């Protein structure tokens, strides 16, 4: 099988496989698969609002998947995306009320920049430990996420709490100062920005020298070392960028979705990010359809349970099945001789 054929066939088969398993599970648990399918088509797939809401749900997933892709580019696993999202969100929610008097556009830029720095800082420790002490980043990033969860809760319930409200939540940004919607849709500016950032990253990977060399670092660090490349610096920088990008999902929560951070907010973006990454077969542009598909599942899990008496966990479970199927394929992948390179020049 050719390389391109495989890159298209494998994700399609995985999605089909996950759908079949989903249907069997529905039938086995006494649901009517046809009714669920019909509801999915009617409320999500074939309705303008369904598509728009799916796109909105795609936004944070796309950003998280991009963060995972950037780390994977240099051969690392950023499993701490959720922690970096929290760091970004907390930074945004802390700063935004102080900029009350600023024009909203300037406020967006300032908040975004500070949040990116916060996300990058949250990735700094794992990056340094990885680059200079060889400590596995998978473990350290997971730990940093737990620290972020606890620290975030404490800040929202303590110093950052809006005293006027009963439940712990930070001071909210006025609806009028949040990110506007694009044209006449439900899609906010943050989602459009996420798509643009993915396109810019794809361009940087292909048309800049660090973009191309970073792939060498990921594919073969010894070869990069032999070429005199500062491998450690690539690793640290890519990890900081990954954390900074992840923080954008936190910015979207504050500037668009809720306008504040709630005390019990626990983003769950890391796993979907890797589902999207594997579904896209590590091709950055393919993250767009992959994240959109996962966005549809995320939206479906909010509307279908009401319509069809389905457990809300059904769709995250489908996502898990998809991830396992893709992982199985990766594990089984044969060595391909004479196949064209992933991207030729």
């Amino acid at each position, binding site marked *: 099988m050719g390389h391109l054929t495989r890159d298209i066939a494998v994700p399609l088969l995985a999605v089909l496989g996950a759908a079949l398993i989903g249907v069997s599970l529905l039938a086995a648990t006494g649901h009517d698969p046809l009714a669920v399918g019909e509801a999915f088509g009617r409320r999500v797939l074939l309705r303008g609002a369904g598509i728009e809401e799916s796109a909105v749900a795609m936004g944070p997933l796309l950003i998280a998947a991009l963060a995972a892709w950037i780390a994977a580019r240099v051969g690392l696993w950023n499993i701490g995306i959720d922690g970096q999202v929290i760091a970004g969100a907390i930074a945004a929610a802390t700063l935004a009320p102080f900029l009350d008097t600023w024009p909203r556009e300037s406020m967006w830029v300032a908040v975004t920049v500070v949040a990116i720095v916060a996300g990058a800082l949250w990735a700094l420790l794992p990056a340094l430990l990885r680059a200079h002490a060889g400590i596995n980043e998978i473990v350290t990033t997971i730990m940093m996420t737990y620290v972020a969860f606890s620290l975030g809760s404490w800040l929202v319930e303590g110093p950052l709490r809006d005293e006027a409200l009963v439940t712990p939540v930070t001071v909210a940004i006025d609806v009028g100062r949040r990110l506007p919607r694009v044209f006449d849709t439900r899609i906010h500016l943050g989602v459009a920005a996420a798509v643009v950032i993915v396109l810019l990253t794809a361009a940087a990977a292909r*048309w800049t*020298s660090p973009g191309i060399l970073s792939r060498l670092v990921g*594919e*073969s660090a010894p*070869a990069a070392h032999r070429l005199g490349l500062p491998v450690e610096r690539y690793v640290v920088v890519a990890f900081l960028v990954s954390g900074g990008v992840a923080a954008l999902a936190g910015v979207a929560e504050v500037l668009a979705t809720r306008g504040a951070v709630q005390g019990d907010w626990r983003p769950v973006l890391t796993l979907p990010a890797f589902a999207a990454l594997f579904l896209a077969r590590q091709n950055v542009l393919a993250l767009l359809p992959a994240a959109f598909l996962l966005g549809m599942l995320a939206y479906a899990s909010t509307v279908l349970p009401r319509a069809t008496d389905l457990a809300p966990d059904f769709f995250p479970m489908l996502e898990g099945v998809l991830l396992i199927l893709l992982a199985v394929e990766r594990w089984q992948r044969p060595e391909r001789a*004479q196949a064209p390179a992933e991207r030729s*020049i």
Partner: protein
Amino acid sequence: MILRVDSVSRTFGQVQACTDVSFGVGRGEVVALLGENGAGKSTLLSIIAGFVVPDSGVVRVDGRLLEHGNPQAAIRAGIGTAFQHFSLSPELTVAESFALARVDVGEARRHLPDHIDMGTRTGDLGVPEQQQVEFVKARLLSARVMLLDEPTSLLGGTDVERVLDGIQAAADAGIACVFVTHRLREALAVADRIVVMRRGWVVERMVRSDAGWPADTERQVLAAMFGDVNAVDEPDVPRTWQSGPGVGTISVQGRVGERTRDISLQIGQVLAVAGIAGNGQEELIELLVGTTADRVRLETTGASLDLTGHRMHEWVRHNVAVVPEDRQLEGGAPAMSLGENLVLRDLAGGRLSTLGAVSRRRLRSRARGLIETWSIRPADPSVRFGSLSGGNMQRALLARSLDPLPKLLVAVRPAHGLDHRSVEMVRRELRAAADAGTAVVTVEGDLDEALAHADSIAVMYQGQLSAAVPVAHADRTALQSMTVSGWDI
């Protein structure tokens, strides 16, 4: 005979790794298996241990046929292994690794020397101690045969003595030992018999009598290991010791082994560092490419430049190129295209890009240019680098490393595993680079190859680097002996 190998042959692709190999080891006997890298020793051990299936031939333990390709069956038959990289898990304590192998820990304690503590992590033990743990394990698992693949290759000095003592003790306990080594001295010290392999064949067998080894054992073994001395082609290009354009030197200072060394490389010359792998070459390479160097001094007629710290690293980045031994893993990214691999050194050196931005069209035409000049096949920049043949991969790496010409080229076993035509190409290009004003260093395991492409030769042995001698004045036999037994200073 406890272990009996009969007419074992095995090929890998075009390479005859073992051809019609037969030998046996008796109870309490030590057989040393000697030969150059690639002589087939490791393949032979892997066949006995059940990791590799032979094309033909049989292995018997106590007269019973051993099932091929079944490591478990080999262990059950009583074959123990202590390979270069230990099977001990470094995180486990000594007691735990015995328990894991289902060996009685109390019994093991009695067999171990007192200074080894059962509570120590095996990773914290020295190599000889790890070896002793393996020996005791093998003995208590009632192993009849012990296979030792270069147990001393990473060691020096007294550690070597202790490993040899361990082998002797195992033999005294009745175990039949097969001891693979590059070092003649060790073989002479511990073995009862020596079997020499070359290019897959057994070419010499020596037996120690009660009076010791026969008089000229050393010379005979060397001749067998390296082939007939007289059959070597004389270098066909006449060379003079100090010549070439831009005469000058590049001196790299830093640690090799225990001592700080100043390695002086002549511009316009090819220096081969000969020696058997595992004698500190990796360290030397890291020094030459600047990773561990303290300073680099450049001297040309009338000018001298002393570089340290940041300035040294800048110099290295732009003026040193490496053709690594492992073309697949260290040379480039196998999954990236040939074209991308060809421009990696340009990009790393800041060429072909404007403020970091790259034109794919420029990359493509640069890659096509190199493919054409160097006749790389297939002549298609979009094929995966990993799908190229060894010769074409080496062409690509040389192309990338020599255009633009570096001031210093480090090539590790550049002709290794290549066909005749590619070997010629490599030698020609190294020569051309030197003539054009590059200081060329090759790290070479094959002495004949070193003699064929170098102007001068130095030898590495146990972390020490000998003085360089011009090839024209080189004594091949003396060099051989230096690679195997070292030298007196």
